[in-house]
């Protein structure tokens, strides 16, 4: 079972990389942009067929390593 993990900065945490991308896009003429936030996507391939068990394992991976929950949130996209 494959799970995509999306890791994003919490609201209110300054994202200097997102800001640099925003500035570059604005300079390229994309002047409708209000903000850009940069995050990560991590694809997990688990040897597990029960979606609930797979999600529980992925959540534990996020809590213990993949996300720094001081500054980051995560969401899971479970792909059958």
């Amino acid at each position, binding site marked *: 079972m494959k799970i995509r993990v999306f890791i994003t900065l919490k609201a209110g945490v*300054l994202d*200097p990389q997102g800001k640099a991308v925003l500035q570059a896009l604005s300079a390229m003429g994309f002047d409708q942009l209000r903000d850009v936030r940069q995050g990560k996507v991590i694809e997990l391939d688990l040897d597990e067929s029960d979606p609930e068990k797979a999600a529980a394992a992925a959540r534990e991976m996020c809590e*213990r390593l993949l996300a*720094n929950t001081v*500054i980051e949130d995560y969401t899971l996209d479970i792909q059958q």
Partner: protein
Amino acid sequence: MKSAVIVFPGSNCDRDMAMALAGALGHAPRMVWHKDVSLPDGLDLIAIPGGFSFGDYLRCGAIAGRSPIMRAVADFANRGGLVLGICNGFQVLCETGLLPGTLMRNSGLKFICKTVRLTVETADSPFTSAYDAGQPIDIPVAHHDGNYVASDALVQRLRDADRIAFSYQDNPNGSSGNIAGVLSQNRRVLGMMPHPERRADPDLGGTDGRALFQSLAKALISA
């Protein structure tokens, strides 16, 4: 009186740290590989050096923070052992939860390699007792992710508990509260982004960092 330096793949200040410790303590520290699961017996001090452990993959210090040896380091710290984390070592200590907050990309996005002026915020710790509170010192920084991120409430808590060891006089990286170095609640763990081990020998351009190692020597002798 025994010390150890933890070495990860990508550590690059481990030998500088060993030199600075040997100079102050009078003996060479043990070098401990990250895959070891136990520490040498009878340690008083563990240093986690600067560098780019695991290539800064995922987040700075994240993978190193889950290395086999770090469980033993956390136990050592929780028993009241002295732990010093410099630069990447600070990032590792935040990632393991031994210190609060975290370190993010510098607010100006650039890697910063220069000597900065710090204020010693407290002399009340085993790491800073040979300094005077309020003393200005010049110590080099060399980091891309040295922006210490802490909530306003956390900064206030650290300040109230006198746990800010060093602050930047001219904040180079956007750190919350201008914090350059922070102490654990029991004051036995210090993490800091600047590199005192690079200013502990006159041949390296200055000795403002030496008092940190002398403080440790004093703490270990009186222990």
